[in-house]
């Protein structure tokens, strides 16, 4: 698939309620499609031998977050049009029943999902729409990290 490739990653402390580490959404003015083809999930620091579930869900608004500047795989490409955010203080507006990927993880492991060609998660060409990655845990408060790479 032709297009420019961009990676972004974000982290967040686990809490007992579901909280978002990274959102990747269309910007508020320019609608364009995006194809998420690679994601990774893991915990930072010294996580205990615990398990949790990481979700990637569709959202229609990115919420309030610390901005992340997406990198460029090819330095000759323009800056990403999609916007990324981490460490959310206000959760993205998630669409009901649109959990795109559900990964049960051990906090001490690292997980990576790679899409097959044509099987990428598609961000619709609608402003502020996109995906958010989140998790929760009953007791752990360690930092967890989610990374996404996409084509636009």
């Amino acid at each position, binding site marked *: 698939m032709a297009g420019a490739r961009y990676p972004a990653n974000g982290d967040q402390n686990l809490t007992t309620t579901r909280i978002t580490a990274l959102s990747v959404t269309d910007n508020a003015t320019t609608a364009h499609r995006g194809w998420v083809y690679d994601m990774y999930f893991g915990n930072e620091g010294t996580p205990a031998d615990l398990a949790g579930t990481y979700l990637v869900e569709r959202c229609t608004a990115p919420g309030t977050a610390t901005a992340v500047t997406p990198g460029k795989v090819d330095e000759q490409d323009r800056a990403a049009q999609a916007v990324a955010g981490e460490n959310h203080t206000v959760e993205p507006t998630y669409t009901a029943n649109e959990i*795109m990927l559900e990964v049960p993880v051990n906090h001490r*492991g*690292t997980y990576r*999902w*790679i899409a097959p060609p*044509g*099987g990428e998660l598609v961000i619709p060409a609608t402003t502020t729409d996109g995906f958010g990655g989140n998790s929760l845990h009953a007791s752990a408060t360690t930092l967890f990290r989610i990374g996404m790479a996409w084509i636009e």
Partner: protein
Amino acid sequence: MNYIKERSKGKGVLLFSPHDSDKDQGQHTITCCHCNHVFIIQPGSGKERGWCFMCGASTCGDRRCSPALNGCAPFEKKLEAYERRTALPLEGAWDIAKGGIWVRTMREVKLRA
């Protein structure tokens, strides 16, 4: 198994790097051609998935995605309907993608306008 090589056969890969081993483990994933959801293939799980002969690809097994129950509704059509704002939210695009329930969907759009 060479999971990366398998990607050319339409399967995604979920790789797991355990902290207590130097060997990666992997599972195949498939992206539903009707709803774009990704599911992990678990042989022996008893979960029923589907196949759309129109798309020539797997479906996730959700009733909404069943070609037998709802016909072929490719994700691309669903996405286009959503982007045209003829269906809100994204789930509503099913009616348009299926074709034939336009009236109900358009009425909903007018009500929302």
